[in-house]
């Protein structure tokens, strides 16, 4: 795990390698995180993977987050691991919500990490984040004809209202 100065060092080197790629860093509970520009995500991941001294060769997980009231709204999180040193580094791409029917887009990292293929499909399935250049971007867990992005915060929880004796006046009934 890079400590706080180590994280700043990585951020600095990364920013000089590809300018404007790092938007911020934070280090909390012993975990290091780089917040990066989604446009430069492939450069960042490739640099972290291939630069001697970094060598975060293993993508342990890739997932999406919806921070709805906050801006930018979406995050795509890459958990990188350097296996010989057992060091973990989190990279988070901050994505804006384009609004309306449009979906947020980010480059696919399948060319760098083959494991990302299914995980990017999962993020697409639940958050509606489009990965440009993904070889086979379609739903993976929900039925293919499902409409909506169920893990977004503005998606209704679902289920059905249950009629209890104390709510039977409010809940609409089947014959109404």
């Amino acid at each position, binding site marked *: 795990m890079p400590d706080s100065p180590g994280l700043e060092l990585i951020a600095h080197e990364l920013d000089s390698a590809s300018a404007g790629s790092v938007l911020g860093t934070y280090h909390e509970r012993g975990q290091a995180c780089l917040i990066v520009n989604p446009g430069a995500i492939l450069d960042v991941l490739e640099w972290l993977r291939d630069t001697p001294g970094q060598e975060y060769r293993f993508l342990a997980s890739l997932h999406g987050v919806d921070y709805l009231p906050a801006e930018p709204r979406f995050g795509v999180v890459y958990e990188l691991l350097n296996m010989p040193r057992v060091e973990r580094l989190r990279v988070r791409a901050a994505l804006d919500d384009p609004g309306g029917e449009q979906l947020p887009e980010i480059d696919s990292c399948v060319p760098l990490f083959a494991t990302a293929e299914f995980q990017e499909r999962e993020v697409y399935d639940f958050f509606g984040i489009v990965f440009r250049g993904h070889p086979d971007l379609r739903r993976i867990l*929900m*039925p293919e004809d499902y409409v*909506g992005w169920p893990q977004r915060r503005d*998606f209704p929880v*679902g*289920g*059905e209202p249950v009629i209890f004796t104390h709510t039977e006046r409010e809940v609409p009934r089947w*014959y109404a």
Partner: protein
Amino acid sequence: MKREKLRSLAPLEEPRSPTDLRVRQLRARDLLRGDLEGPDLERHVAEAVMPTTMSKAIGWARANSIFPATFGLACCAIEMMSMVSPRYDIARFGAENMRASPRQADMLILSGRVSIKMAPVVRRIYDQMLEPKWVISMGACSSSGGMFANYAVVQGADKFMPVDIHVPGCPPRPEALVFGFNKLQRMILGNPDPGWRRRYNAIGTEEWARPGTGTATEEEAEAYAAARELSVAYDSARARESRKGPA
């Protein structure tokens, strides 16, 4: 209720006199010649003891030799599996032989939550089973969605397929499932348990709500009555269809 209906269809006049038997024999001969028509024919069929006894015997045979489908959906399936084990021993009731093919099975136990992706699969398995077939919905999830009130789970399996018995529990113990299975057997025998319906004097209210209690306004009561009429008409139409057999 069912028994009364049976009795009205086939009145048993006892003791039967020898002349009565003679009359019946003559009538049977007329039937075989094709001379028996109209109300006489109806009466003869209604009085024939054989079909009712036969259907009882068939029901008895069916109820005591049920082949459940090997089909587990979620955690309830663990309880379903232990139902077959020597400890609970469903073999006592003749249903220990789980068939791996729906074509050979005649009971489906929905053991667990049905996700919306699984629902078409379950429905297909049900459709592939041969008639007669029965379904036990096991546990809270498959009966009502249970704790999974979310976007991924069907809120009650009877939304997409008919269910004969609902066994409550989360998960139900194997004993509960065996109890539900025994109820199903009595249903197949044509003698279903009224259960709470007897306690609450609610016999004859199946499938629709009773007007009066629980209805606040007159409109609601009317809506109930209309829905009940529709439901009765639909049921009798379906019964006619099924008597006709497949087209």
